[in-house]
């Protein structure tokens, strides 16, 4: 009973935190990963100057899992405290009942210039519930100076990455840098680990999946066993055990302070590792994630965030106008240049100023357009459970508590149990 009160307490705290101090016309929730919040506020300022309305910007938890819980509580309470939500690419299906159809509030053809795949993803039963703001796919950051120093090529397979990481880590440690590691990624038991692990699995020949497009459970496959066994071998070898509690920002902390050779992260980190304060400025480059073996293929999981308007908003038209402004060509260009956020407009990937600021937008264009989706559409409301079961299993395997075979067998049973609830 007591625990039933805790969510209520969190909810009150959350509502208390987001209640505007001064009466603003709109409230917008933004992520606060890296420089995200500052960029968001700058964009909002421009809209305010243009329209004369005022907007309250609230920051949300960095962990996507926690952010979703917060949103669901606010939306289920039918609260009008937040008008515009920044939502993950896997959430439109789940949150659709609480969001307005933007088609009714935006001019015709508002989505014409955007990536079609993302617009489709955000269209639920013919209703456009969110506008694509920025897209994402996992990429590999590497220290070009160190690869040169040890005369190594950029690895194209996970096996190659493991080897290169071992070589450089051993060399750097001999040179007295005892806290140097080969590879950091997102290993905490949260949505980010689902993304990381799906990237490993999907990169093996024929691409392993968790649940296929027909809704069949496919996770107990040979590719997954191979991928997870290899990854489990990284812990304490080329990755610190602490990686099991890292999210994006913890991984960036290690990499940006110069203590890691490779990092898996989203494109947002580019602007930060290349910033003036960064200790590794101009010694970093970005490549597609490695493939699983010689016959495999690189697989970055599709991420990205969209802007949606709450059904409980008091000013849906004004909110839709803010969404249209923030996702416009100019605003996306500014965000791409200043924060290396991937635009959702194909045209911007040919823009000279954007490419000068973030060269890999050009070279990795295919990675972004052919990113691997998570099984959110097919599992629907059950996606959080599926993802949770998956990342917990992967976490157990990485921790060394179970072998990859055992873990995936258990996961297969667990998912069958979930599937009884139909997805």
């Amino acid at each position: 009973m007591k625990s039933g009160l805790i969510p209520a307490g969190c909810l009150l705290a959350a509502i208390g935190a987001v209640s505007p101090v001064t009466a603003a016309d709109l409230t917008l929730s933004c992520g606060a990963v890296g420089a995200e919040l500052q960029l968001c506020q700058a964009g909002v300022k421009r809209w305010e100057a243009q329209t004369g309305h005022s907007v309250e910007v609230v920051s949300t938890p960095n962990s996507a899992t926690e952010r979703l819980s917060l949103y669901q509580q606010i939306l289920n309470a039918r609260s009008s405290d937040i008008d515009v939500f920044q939502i993950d690419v896997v959430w439109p299906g789940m949150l659709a009942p609480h969001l307005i159809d933007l088609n009714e509030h935006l001019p015709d053809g508002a989505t014409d210039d955007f990536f079609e795949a993302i617009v489709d993803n955000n269209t639920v039963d013919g209703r456009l519930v969110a506008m694509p703001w920025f897209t994402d796919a996992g990429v590999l950051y590497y220290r070009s100076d160190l690869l040169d120093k040890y005369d190594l090529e950029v690895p194209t397979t996970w096996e190659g990455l493991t080897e290169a990481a071992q070589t450089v880590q051993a060399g750097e440690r001999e040179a007295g840098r005892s806290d140097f590691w080969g590879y950091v990624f997102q290993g905490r038991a949260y949505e980010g680990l689902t993304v990381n692990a799906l990237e490993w699995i999907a990169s093996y020949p024929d691409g392993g999946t968790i649940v296929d497009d027909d809704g069949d459970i496919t996770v107990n496959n040979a590719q997954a066993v191979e991928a997870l066994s290899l990854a489990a071998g990284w812990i304490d070898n080329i990755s610190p055990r602490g990686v099991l509690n890292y999210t994006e920002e913890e991984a960036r902390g290690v990499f940006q302070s110069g203590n890691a050779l490779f990092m898996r992260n989203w494109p947002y980190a580019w602007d930060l590792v290349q910033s003036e304060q960064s200790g590794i400025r101009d010694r970093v480059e970005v490549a597609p994630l490695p493939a699983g073996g010689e016959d495999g293929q690189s697989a970055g999981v599709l991420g990205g965030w969209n802007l949606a308007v709450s059904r409980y908003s008091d000013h849906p038209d004004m909110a839709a106008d803010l969404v249209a402004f923030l996702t416009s060509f100019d605003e996306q260009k500014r965000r791409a240049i200043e924060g290396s956020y991937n635009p959702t407009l194909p045209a911007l990937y040919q823009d000279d100023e954007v490419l000068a600021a973030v060269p890999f937008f050009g070279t990795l264009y295919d990675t972004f357009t052919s990113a691997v989706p998570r099984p959110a559409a097919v599992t629907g409301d059950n996606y959080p459970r599926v993802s949770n079961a998956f990342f917990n299993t992967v976490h157990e395997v990485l921790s060394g508590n179970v072998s990859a075979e055992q873990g995936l067998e258990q996961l297969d049973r667990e998912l069958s149990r979930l599937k009884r609830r139909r997805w």
Partner: protein
Amino acid sequence: MATDEQGIAQARHEASSDDTPPRGRGTRVRRQRVRAAWLFLAPMLIVLTAVAGWPLVRTFWFSLTDASLSSLDGAQFIGFDNYLVFDDGWYGILADPLWWQSVWNTLYFTLVSVSLEAVLGVIVALVLNAHFRGRTLVRAAMLIPWAIPTVVSAKIWAWMLNDQFGIINHLLLTIGLIDAPLSWTADASLSMWAVIMVDVWKATPFVALLVLAALQMLPNDCYEAAKVDGIHPAKVFFRVTLPLITPALLVAVIFRALDALRVFDVIYVLTSNAASTMTMSIYARQQLVEFQDVGYGSAASTLLFMIIALVTVIYLYLGRRQLGGEQ
């Protein structure tokens, strides 16, 4: 004792006089007393029913349905399916290994952290009970961990325990106790101890405060007598001080035990949903909030309530002597 027996005798006398028509003065007085007692109890009972009984009953009712957070109204009655159901294998909470791990984690956390807090709390209280300069200042300082909101202190500890930048690893490395940084909150074998350590740090002042209050009420003559007889201080502690402060200590321990059994914040901030430190509260929250499954989550909350009630009953039964029950 003597007055008790007199009371009982009187009550028997009154009971026997009930056989005669209800004219006796004692009967009427007694009835009035009973009526007055109910009258005085009524506000508390009404409030308790409203704030504790109603949510409890409602949670239990939800646990028998398939309600989800987004559609509470559309809930269907499904009996005890959330608890246990056979359908090509056992399903439900009672068949979920993660639930049983959460139960075990919670009991383990409670036993270890409360024991440590009790022992350390008594030691701290004894120190603070001694006369020394600046005692008031130290007493105030001791309360700081208890005064900081748990989420804040847990976040502070999360940074101190960080595997790469944390000060704890830095200190341990500098004095040579470890030769590689430990990942306190990520390593399954360490994370339980990390959260226990933070909880002990936080809650020891609470136990110390209650024990200190008891210590200050102790009669001086026992100690003077012990001094005259030349008894060893350790023996004085175990034979005089400890028995006298036991009632206060038991109250402190039950408060702490109840808190620890439904622990949520400190663990959620430090290790999130990790299975190695998942407690019953974290399990219930995950079902309720993250998975939106009010039915299943309520079933977990109901079980959590029953387990806490059971532990409390056992504890009160075992401690009934010191807690002022039967003599």
